[in-house]
């Protein structure tokens, strides 16, 4: 401490806390997206630290596709109860039932999350939405600002982003517009895991390696569950896998891994040669610009 140096993890934490406080102090109605995935878990932890000993001064929202790992939903509810934060659930199933969105024939709900998210933002008049996205995840994200402006259609215009200098974040919006705020912008996957380790943050069990029944689809291992039905001609086999990301249970594949503790995961992540989205997300494989296109529509 005496030479006034801090580790990069401590610097990233200080930056994230600054961002949380900046939003709380300048935006009218912020909300934090919370899915029970590791990045949002880290965000919730940082939000708690930013305002301690006061409670988190904004609610959290989950855009629930209805296709989540049951255990992750349990975790979500447990954390919400522990922190005393208000949880808003925007239900995709409910939106389908109301006819607001139509379920695609392949049953994937990733893309129809966006209108549900935007509807909820409008209903509650949220002007700032925290998301756990990181710039190292994907190359369209690498260009995104920490405070990312969305117009009144929720659209991102990558060619017309607000310049972002020093730590002077511009969160000004007109009614109906929003700022998406990414406190973890400068974190890498490894940073997230190291932070989880150093802060002893509990995680859902799906993140740890265990023997699971899986099917192989195009080289990706999907655990058989209520959303992954075994198709004709598919072979079910047992494999020790863990999840590097946790999205919809029907879209997220596991990776072969023996890592059953945080330290083992850190060692594995440090040595891996495949990005987490590349290894695990069926939804990002569509095209070279899949993420950019979804973000333009208002996706996180």
């Amino acid at each position: 401490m005496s030479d006034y140096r801090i580790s990069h993890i401590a610097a990233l934490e200080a930056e994230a806390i600054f961002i949380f406080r900046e939003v709380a102090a300048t935006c009218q109605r912020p909300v934090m997206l919370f899915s029970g995935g590791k990045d949002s878990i880290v965000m919730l932890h940082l939000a708690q630290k930013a305002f301690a000993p006061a409670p988190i001064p904004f609610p959290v929202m989950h855009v629930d596709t209805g296709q989540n790992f049951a255990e992750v939903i349990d975790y979500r509810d447990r954390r919400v109860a522990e922190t005393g934060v208000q949880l808003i659930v925007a239900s995709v199933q409910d939106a389908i039932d109301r006819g607001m969105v139509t379920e695609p024939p392949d049953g994937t709900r990733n893309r129809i999350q966006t209108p549900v998210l935007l509807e909820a933002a409008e209903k509650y008049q949220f002007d700032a939405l925290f998301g756990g996205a990181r710039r190292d995840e994907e190359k369209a994200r690498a260009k995104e600002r920490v405070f990312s402006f969305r117009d009144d259609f929720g659209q991102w215009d990558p060619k017309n982003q607000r310049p972002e200098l020093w730590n002077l974040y511009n969160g000004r919006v007109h009614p109906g517009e929003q700022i998406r705020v990414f406190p973890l912008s400068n974190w890498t996957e490894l940073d997230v895991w190291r932070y989880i380790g150093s802060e002893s943050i509990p995680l859902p069990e799906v993140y740890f390696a265990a023997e699971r029944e899986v099917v192989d689809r195009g080289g990706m291992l999907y655990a058989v569950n209520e959303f992954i039905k075994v198709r004709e001609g598919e072979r079910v086999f047992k494999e020790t896998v863990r999840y590097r990301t946790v999205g919809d249970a029907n879209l997220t594949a596991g990776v072969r891994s023996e890592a059953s503790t945080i330290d083992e995961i850190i060692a594995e992540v440090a040595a891996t040669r495949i990005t987490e989205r590349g290894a695990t997300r069926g939804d990002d494989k569509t095209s070279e610009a899949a993420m950019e296109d979804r973000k333009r529509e208002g996706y996180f």
Partner: protein
Amino acid sequence: MTDTLTSREDTHELLRFATAGSVDDGKSTLIGRLLYDSKALFDDQWDAVEAVSAGRGDEYTDLALLTDGLRSEREQGITIDVAYRYFSTPERKFIIADTPGHIQYTRNMVTGASTADLALILVDARKGLVEQSRRHAFLCSLLRVPHMVLCVNKMDLVDYDEVVFKRIENEFKAFATKLEVPDLTVVPISALKGDNVVNRSEHMPWYQGPSLLHHLEKVHIASDRNLVDVRFPVQHVIRPHSGDHHDYRGYAGQVASGVMKPGDEVMVLPSGFTSKIASIETADGPLEEAFPPLSVTVRLEDELDVSRGDMLCRPGNQARVSQDIEAMVCWMDEARPLRLRGKYALKHTTADVRAIVKDVQYQLDVNTLHRDETATELGLNEIGRITLRTTKPLLCDDYRRNRATGGFIIIDESDNRTVGAGIIV
């Protein structure tokens, strides 16, 4: 190994650096190599780039595809915006702000340089210094990037000739003496062949300095922070209003500069009231001292009226309190120029004020450094010196002394866009 990895106390320092240069200078190749050699480039990213490159009929794998993340960038083969890249070595974690080099992207370069500890400027050994290299160097010195590295690239194409290198080095150093460049390192490299990027080159025995990566790992940045002038812009007031914390009142913020300790006498600006620091708190417990860039909560011994936008400093070392601001401004708006008598919103530290442009003193040609004193407005990517009058005093310092309290952004109140960046002189 896992012990040190998970420890908060591990000494992995963070170094942010900005790169400037065009595709022609080999910047993308250099970044690609740094990422690949430090294993920050993943196989699926490499495969994707290789596939696209092959599909387009490129002769070699185009590493620019790694960094050009937007559809229109890939289509046009140009870099439009700042992209952030991450890699780490056992020594440090690095954040690269990869900025496009052309003059029409001056604003992006300024953006990338604003937070950089180090600027990396590339020149092609065959071409030597060009207008663009001088502009990059000038912008980095304007933004007070503490360290600068000139990479003379493509040394393989000039037979690793020391004479060529020395000529460029001397020319650049002569130019740099006219700027404020506190620390300059010049490295001869070949990004394509890997000479002096990660490892010392065998082709240039005449070069005795470190490889680029070695320099990035070792350059001393801890002293770049201002640890002398205590400046704590109050960001948010924490008042729990609950059970155990009924009378709790804490001032949350990030230490901009200086070192604060409990018991220190502090002055609140702009009111001028003084008190003592009762405690410096974090969610992990109290601290014995706070310094940049820590985010903390400061409690004072006395009940004072302190709110967001106020600043804590020391009675004997105060920030300037002024409504008349002299600044160099980089204009970033495509739609409208900065105009004399124009009214704007400013964001400076945690304060929001309004301001009117009282004077446009000159517009600066970033290539020749010529001052045009007849200018009355500043267009997109233009830089000039202006005088502002603000509605409320700014609590500020000269940018050259304090990057955190000397910079501000200019916002157009009609559409809320960030239209300019200012540094107080």
